């Protein structure tokens, strides 16, 4: 979230799309309700199904799963055509006026300039501003047109790119009636009616946007819409991702993914021979119009990186050895979740340790994952329930004879549940909030980090005794805890905040980080959470001096307790808030400082006259309407592509229907279906409010509320199939079949997609073959993700769980 949960109450307009907060974030949904009560805010909900969020919306539109970019592109088109734009904001805070490379080409035929069909990737050198000295680098000074009239400026390219996203095309692609779409576009952009800047709109989304083979580009489209409407950085605005787990934001911050190190530092690659090579590659340099100033906060990357290396390796990281750069693994290719399982299926990955994860359920193409686990040598699962992954060898369909052939050694470790341990959650609003264990750990269960510590210490002992190929990173890893087997979570939290190695004092924040080895910090974005004053994430202050729901003394929000990111953009070029009733920060001419209700996300002493861009994490200082160079794998501006499995050809460019850079896997399990093969129904997956992922099928309370899996389908489709509510139906994709009871409903309607009647169905994800009902044999014990394809977004590697093709039959 650029903003936060509570801040939603400050909005005038909500577009909730790709998310279902009433069902999946019911506690947070009180804030949209408050916005309605306090500000008469309007709520537009766009979803493939009439959800419980849609049920309370002012305007609900049923969209075809996967057509989101067409819808958002249409919104951008509408805003630009109808002058519903924030011109001052656009010119001064975004790269709308930046001039783009002459050779850059928009995807008229579905491909941006620079596509290499061989490698299915782009040479992105033309995706740049004018005047770059080197092909892969941004120019120091960018050509700029404040009138936004130059045909090569970003704004004109944007206008041209989305000129084809007319309401007619939106209807053809999304299935949303033209009039309904225009109603939604009119309503949403009405916050900028007649150029008025006081009102604010927010966009709220979740995995309904990310789980596509173009997920990142959907979110980009939303960000562009918010930038042209001037809604980013402001109370009640922003682009707000709702996190589906209590600590998924925290997991992201500490880099639970292969291409990041903690604090969003990019991993080294084999091309980085030294620490300095690495720094040179990942530290951006300023790139801005000559009239502007830019802080380019990532220029501090070496401070973050050196301090991280000191946290990893302590005294073993010295200036002389390049801060132990050699200890870091160099990432030579993609190692996302689906890659790991594909590698395991090809016997390249031989063992797996799973903590807090049930990969048999969560991944796409479940049977492939089960078969991959069969080939592993060992599997360690730490969980609080017997779950599908550690029971993969007894998954439905495996015979006793086949079980004998499985050589995988499976270890089940009893971990501790969230209520059984202390520690922090980082919520969607980037708040670190400490919580205390509510109940003791049962039986022989152990804290997860105790289990990890003991494994680590044993492995290190083996390295110490037996040597090995390269024991140094293991032997020299910093492990300075009072009880090494059970580090205190407070010790870890303090380490993550960082310490001055000279004075031994906790750091006040990341501004104190040094690149000379005198500071250590486990995660620079969290620096400041546990200064000398103590653990700020344990604060429970309920003061709200501004009345805007900032609550500056409740918990701690990264970065540096800033509650709304880019909040410089909440004021005009002169430093005056756009809306005096929702002041975030403003320029105090007397004090010569930015002051306000929130911590300025800005250089506090940079006067408005310097024209420093508010988006300090970009080297331009500008909000990126155009994402230059390596920012995105699949285009500097979002273009609508069909899902990999789609009932229709891309209406813009049938020759290039799907995202051109998406790679398909090639194992015998990786089959992809087409309408011609009879897979003509769109299937989307989702969660129910009554359940929490794959856990709560073990809890009688949740099971009572939703006892068994079902397939939600339109009345019309059910009639065609002769299916009544409660009948068993079989849903088949190119990969597998899934059987469950039919929920026949009017909440999903048949749609006209490019002139063809098209059905969508929806299946909740929550069940499997272990759980209360499953163990009693009361469900069909199969996995919804056995249907979904192994195909991922090229930027974030999120699988395409929303919108794949199936056929439906009466079982």
């Amino acid at each position, binding site marked *: 979230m650029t903003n936060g949960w509570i801040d939603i109450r400050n909005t005038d307009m909500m577009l909730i799309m790709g998310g279902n907060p*009433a069902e999946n974030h*019911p506690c947070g*949904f009180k804030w949209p309700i408050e916005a309605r009560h306090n500000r008469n805010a309007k709520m537009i909900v766009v979803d493939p199904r*009439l959800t419980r969020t849609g*049920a*309370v919306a002012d305007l609900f539109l049923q969209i075809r799963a996967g057509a989101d970019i067409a819808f958002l592109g249409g919104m951008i088109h509408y805003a630009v055509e109808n002058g519903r734009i924030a011109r001052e904001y656009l010119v001064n805070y975004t790269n709308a006026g930046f001039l783009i490379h002459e050779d850059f080409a928009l995807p008229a035929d579905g491909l941006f300039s620079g596509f290499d069909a061989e490698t299915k990737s782009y040479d992105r050198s033309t995706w740049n501003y004018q005047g770059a000295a080197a092909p892969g680098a941004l120019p120091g000074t960018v050509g700029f047109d404040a009138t936004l009239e130059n045909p090569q400026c970003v704004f004109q390219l944007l206008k041209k790119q989305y000129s084809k996203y007319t309401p007619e095309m939106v209807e053809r692609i999304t299935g949303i009636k033209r009039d309904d779409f225009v109603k939604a576009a009119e309503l949403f952009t009405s916050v900028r009616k007649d150029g008025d800047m006081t009102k604010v709109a927010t966009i709220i989304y979740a995995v309904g946007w990310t789980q596509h083979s173009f997920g990142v580009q959907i979110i980009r489209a939303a960000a562009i819409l918010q930038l042209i409407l001037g809604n980013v950085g402001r109370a009640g605005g922003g682009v707000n991702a709702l996190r589906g787990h209590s600590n998924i934001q925290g997991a992201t911050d500490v880099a639970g993914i292969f291409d990041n190190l903690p604090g969003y530092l990019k991993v080294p690659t084999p091309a980085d021979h030294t620490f300095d090579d690495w720094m040179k590659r990942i530290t951006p340099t300023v790139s801005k119009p000559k009239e502007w100033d830019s802080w380019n906060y990532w220029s501090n990357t070496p401070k973050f990186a050196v301090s991280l290396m000191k946290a990893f390796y302590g005294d073993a990281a010295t200036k002389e050895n390049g801060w132990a750069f050699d200890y870091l693994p160099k990432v030579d290719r993609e190692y996302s979740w689906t890659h790991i399982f594909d590698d395991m299926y090809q016997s390249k990955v031989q063992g797996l340790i799973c903590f807090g994860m049930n990969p048999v359920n969560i991944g796409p193409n479940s049977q492939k994952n089960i078969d991959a686990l069969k080939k592993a040598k060992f599997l360690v699962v730490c969980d609080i329930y017997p779950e599908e992954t550690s029971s993969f060898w007894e998954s439905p369909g495996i015979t006793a004879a086949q079980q004998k052939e499985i050589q995988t050694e499976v270890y089940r470790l009893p971990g501790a549940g969230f209520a059984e341990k202390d520690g922090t959650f980082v919520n969607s609003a980037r708040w670190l909030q400490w919580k205390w264990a509510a109940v003791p750990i049962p039986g022989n269960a152990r804290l997860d980090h105790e289990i990890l510590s003991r494994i680590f210490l044993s492995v290190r002992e083996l390295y110490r005794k037996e040597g090995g190929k390269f024991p140094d990173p293991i032997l020299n890893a910093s492990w300075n805890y009072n009880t090494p087997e059970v580090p205190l979570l407070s010790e870890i939290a303090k380490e993550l905040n960082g310490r001055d190695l000279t004075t031994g004092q906790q750091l006040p924040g990341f501004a104190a980080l040094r690149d000379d080895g005198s500071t250590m910090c486990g995660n620079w974005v969290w620096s400041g959470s546990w200064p000398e004053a103590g653990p700020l994430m344990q604060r429970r202050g309920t003061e709200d001096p501004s009345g805007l729901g900032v609550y500056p003394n409740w918990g701690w929000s990264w970065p540096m307790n800033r509650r709304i990111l880019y909040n410089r953009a909440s004021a005009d070029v002169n430093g005056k808030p756009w809306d005096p009733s929702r002041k975030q920060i403003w320029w105090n001419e007397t004090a010569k400082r930015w002051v306000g209700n929130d911590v300025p996300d800005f250089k506090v002493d940079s006067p408005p006259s310097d024209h420093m861009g508010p988006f300090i994490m970009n080297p331009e200082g500008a909000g990126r309407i155009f994402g230059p160079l390596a920012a995105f794998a699949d285009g500097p501006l979002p273009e609508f592509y069909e899902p990999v499995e789609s009932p229709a050809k891309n209406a813009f460019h049938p020759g290039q229907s799907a995202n051109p850079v998406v790679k398909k896997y090639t194992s015998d399990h990786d089959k992809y279906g087409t309408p011609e093969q009879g897979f003509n129904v769109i299937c989307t997956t989702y969660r129910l*409010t009554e359940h929490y992922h794959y856990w709560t099928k073990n809890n009688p*309370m949740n099971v009572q509320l939703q006892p068994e899996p079902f397939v939600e389908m339109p009345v019309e489709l059910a009639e065609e199939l002769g299916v*009544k509510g409660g009948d068993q139906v079989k849903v088949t994709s190119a990969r597998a079949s899934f059987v469950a009871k039919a929920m*026949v409903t009017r909440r999903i309607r048949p749609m006209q997609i490019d002139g063809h009647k098209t059905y969508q169905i929806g299946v909740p994800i929550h069940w499997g073959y272990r759980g209360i009902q499953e163990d009693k044999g009361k469900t069909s014990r199969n996995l919804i993700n056995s249907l979904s394809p192994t195909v991922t977004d090229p930027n974030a590697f999120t699988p395409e769980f929303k919108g794949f093709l199936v056929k439906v039959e009466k079982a």
Partner: protein
Amino acid sequence: MNIVRISGHAGTVPGENASREYAVAKLIDVTTCIGCKACEVACLEWNGYPFRETVFDNTYQTMPDLEWNYYNLIRFDEHVKEDGNLSWLFRKDGCMHCAEPGCLMACPADGAIVQYANGIVDFNQDNCIGCQYCVTGCPFNIPRFNKETKKVHKCTLCSDRVGAGLEPACVKACPTGCLHFGSKDDMKELGEKLSTQIRDNTSHKNAGVYDPPGVGGTHVMYVLHDAQNPERYSGLPRNPTIPLAVRIWKGPLKWLGNAAMIGGILGAAIHYLRFGPKKEDGPHA
């Protein structure tokens, strides 16, 4: 808490108006209910009732109906609106705590149903005789009979919590704040305010508060998008009253019966005094 009425009870009410207490009410804003069922779970947990096995029934609704140990059920209802779009309505069903409770009127058992000064109508199972007249007296079809214990149960509005200054468990658990709890006056005012806001700012021009006068108003009220058509909300009665038969039974018929019985006995006595017995061997001519 302060009792104002007791079922099946002769004579005065002990402690009547002995202390000041204001009437309380729960306001259910149906327009912001998201059907999450947190109230259902909170109700079970507070009252210590077990979770049960349910069966998929082509609906999101937990089960078809209330049960003696399930006081609180969100009813899910779908309607095609005039404009062709679908409305999906969630109504939290449970005891309405009528100001003129039909259950209490119908109940013959001394002290089985009490109405407190704060408006809560509570069942006291110790005194319940299991006749289920309350079921008949209720215009909302709420009380449920436990066949094993032969006692009737329904929502207590968490009289135990409210008596200790807390809000009902369902209100505590509601994540969106669509459940409100406070004085009846405040809740009415809030309900009107919400309704006005909905009427003024949304397409629901008939939004309003459901506080049916036929039962003297209720201590559980709804804010409905369409107060003109309460039936759309899974059959909420348009103008609920205590059934006519129950009112006749407990009103005119009772007085008629009393008069007839007393009159019959008195008449017999007077007759005896006036005419005495017949001769055993017949008239003496």
